[in-house]
């Protein structure tokens, strides 16, 4: 039996545009009433054209952007109501992989420093850090001799592996993948996707995969949601969605 790990109910995010004095504020409905359920060891793909609110949904789940309303229930708790401190505890279990690995890493830090950041943030004891670093690097197909490098000294694929390593080093339950392969060469894309699938198997991860590339979603997602203008217009099993296309 599958257990629900994360439940998003009626998630809504409105961005207000700055207006002149005495003028009523204008709102942009970036996410409008999105609901989804993520089961253990499952990958949910969210697809849609650019600007439809997929990334905002992902960021709202992690509260990198505060949602306007709605609930995000993780382990029985609505995380949208948690304090910043409590939320930081939850972040250990929900991590994110970003689209552009180069931009998501501080160019002035070495890979060791970049990968140590989650360990320091969540106070992993010093003596456990080194084995974790090595083990995680091995999991993503890199070795210890990459630790002393800077991000610019690595190839795009290697950098995204580091991005993934950073997300899984704390052994989270959920990883939000925000266009994880769209900045990569086609030849590297499949390697990274396979790596993600293997990691899911090995570590029991659940993914929320945000992508505009249907091929990518078809490759690794179990269920797919289609977003259009901030709304989830369709949600269903992969086969159902790709065979009977409504949108």
């Amino acid at each position, binding site marked *: 039996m599958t257990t629900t790990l994360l439940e998003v109910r009626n998630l809504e995010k409105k961005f207000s545009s700055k207006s002149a004095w005495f003028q009523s504020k204008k709102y942009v409905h970036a996410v409008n009433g999105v609901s989804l359920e993520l089961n253990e060891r499952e990958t949910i793909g969210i697809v849609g054209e650019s600007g439809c609110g997929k990334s905002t949904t992902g960021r709202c789940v992690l509260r990198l952007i505060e949602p306007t309303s709605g609930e995000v229930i993780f382990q029985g708790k609505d995380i949208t109501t948690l304090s910043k401190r409590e939320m*930081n505890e939850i972040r250990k279990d929900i991590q994110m992989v970003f689209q552009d690995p180069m931009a998501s890493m*501080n160019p*002035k830090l070495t890979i060791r420093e970049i990968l140590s950041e989650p360990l320091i943030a969540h106070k992993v004891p010093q003596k456990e850090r080194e084995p974790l670093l090595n083990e995680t690097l091995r999991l993503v*197909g890199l070795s210890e001799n990459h630790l002393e490098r800077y991000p610019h000294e690595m190839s795009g694929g290697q950098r995204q592996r580091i991005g993934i390593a*950073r997300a899984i080093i704390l052994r989270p339950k959920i990883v939000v993948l925000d266009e994880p392969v769209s900045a990569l060469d086609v030849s590297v894309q499949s390697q990274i996707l396979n790596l993600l699938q*293997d990691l899911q198997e090995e570590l029991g991860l659940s993914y929320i995969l945000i992508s505009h590339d249907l091929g990518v979603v078809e490759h690794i997602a179990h269920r797919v949601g289609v977003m259009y203008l901030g709304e989830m217009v369709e949600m269903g099993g992969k086969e159902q969605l790709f065979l009977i296309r409504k949108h």
Partner: protein
Amino acid sequence: MAKSEIYKPIQARVTSKSPMKLRADFLKRIFKDKRAVVCILFLFIVSIVGIFAPIIAPFDPEELFYDSILEAPNKEHLLGTDAIGRDLLSRLIYGVRVTLTVSLLAVAITFFLGTFIGLVCAYVGGWVDNVLMRIMDILLALPSIILALAIVAILGPSLTNAMIAVGVASIPGFARLIRGAALTIKSSMFVEASRSIGSSHSWILRRQFLPNVTGILLVYTTLFIGVAILDTAALSFIGLGAQPPTPEWGTMLSEGRNYMQNAWWLATFPGIAITMVVFAVNFLGDALRDIFDPKSSG
């Protein structure tokens, strides 16, 4: 693709560079720039002269030679003597200590408070940013020397107060610079990544912001040293900084002004000293800017 293939460590194509090596690279770039080398050498010599002033100076800066008052440069007093018979060269040499210490401390005040305010404004944003930046705007509306004058007027004329005044007066400009640089970093993806990881605010500021503003910090701190030397000397010149008989270059310039017509050396040598040090510091700042940001050269 087979699982084993994915897990196989990828051999790096680029040779790795350790942080030590990167630092060495940076030093190499500085030493390639002739301007920077000459300035560093000059400032190094000036600092050495200041540190070893008691050994290098031929006389005590406050020793009076009653039989050689207002004497032009000669063999005994290489740069001449002043109106009460003190050796000008010795006073200039001891003056290095006062001038450099005061301006460096003033810059330290600017550096720490300016960086702190700039980073906090950029990072926290909202009303904190608004309030602090409006205060900075008000302070920026006044020329820094006028602001320094006002501060000294409140605190009273002394070298320490001049130092505080010069330091505080430069904070608004510095804070604005750092805020601008930090705002670009704030919107960068790696800061968002840090937030998604759950890193603390202090960690994000220390590890993500600071390393990325070091270049700007270094360049502008160097440039501010020049401003600080000039402002301290200016305050002393109008009698609000170092008080006689302290051998401070601005004070010496001010004292020499009264004898310009019959003892040119009294104002000329302190003037040259101030000019040369300020030039060296400014040139060094420019060189560092070119080294850190090759796009801005030319």
